[in-house]
């Protein structure tokens, strides 16, 4: 009885493998296995600086962290208050502007999520995640 159960489990585990591999091949250009953000969607502090006034800095950290300090001129846009803050961001955005989203550090996910939602829901091009986040910006600027 137990061996039949193990066999059933193994068959199901194996069956799911084929479409999973197929999907991995199909989505190979849309997701990176090395990093949560595609290299083409990342921007360093130095690169973003070269954009000068053509960049909108977006702070994806919680309100209290934004209030305590942020990149000069940055707009707050986090997932907790997405609906309230998005119109303020869109009022500032214009075609041709690049968007650099940051959260606390390299390991935080908020900037990635906000950048993804800006691309998908607001259909904005040129949305980038700041490599190293706020910590990287501080290191370069203080």
């Amino acid at each position, binding site marked *: 009885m137990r061996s*039949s159960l193990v066999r*059933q489990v193994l068959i199901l585990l194996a069956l799911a493998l084929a*479409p999973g591999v197929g999907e991995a091949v199909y989505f190979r250009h849309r997701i990176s*296995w090395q990093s949560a953000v595609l290299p083409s969607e990342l921007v360093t502090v130095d690169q973003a600086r070269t954009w000068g006034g053509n960049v909108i800095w977006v702070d994806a950290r919680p309100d209290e962290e934004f209030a305590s300090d942020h990149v000069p001129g940055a707009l707050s846009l986090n997932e907790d208050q997405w609906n309230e803050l998005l119109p303020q961001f869109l009022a500032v955005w214009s075609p041709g502007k690049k968007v650099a989203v940051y959260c606390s550090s390299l390991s935080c996910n908020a900037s990635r999520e906000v950048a993804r939602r800006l691309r998908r829901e607001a259909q904005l091009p040129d949305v980038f995640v700041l490599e190293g986040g706020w910590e990287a910006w501080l290191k370069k600027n203080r």
Partner: protein
Amino acid sequence: MLNAEVSAHGTTSNIKHRASNIFWRILGLIIAGIFIYAGAIKALDPVQFASDIDNYKILPWPISVALAFYLPWLEIFCGFALVVRWLYRGALSILTALILVFTLATIAAKVRGLDITCGCFGHASQNWSFPAHLATNVAILSALMALWFQSAAKRSATTAG
């Protein structure tokens, strides 16, 4: 007279047995539907699901990506196995293990203070609160356990008969 009583008793028992069978079948189909739906939603957007797994901060990113491609299909196949009753116990075992892992990961994330979306039903579940998420998982787990015990009881009855 005695024959009539035995026959009536047999008919009542038959009706009860059929009603019980229908109940378990419907419960199995509901659970199958939940997993097929949840799997399909995630299979359509594995990039988002990888991100949802990564939010739990338990696994390295490459493992999250691999699971994002694999787990939705496992849920779908197990759901279909419940529908067609082929590899039935194997599917119940896998789904029980999956829901246990999901529940433990959710509790661990809460304990660690992570404010995350579960990703269980794609973005449809992004606004679920922790209690709602936990209650859903416990309900599904209970149903799976009930199906498992019913299947075991049926098997032992068949073997004994």
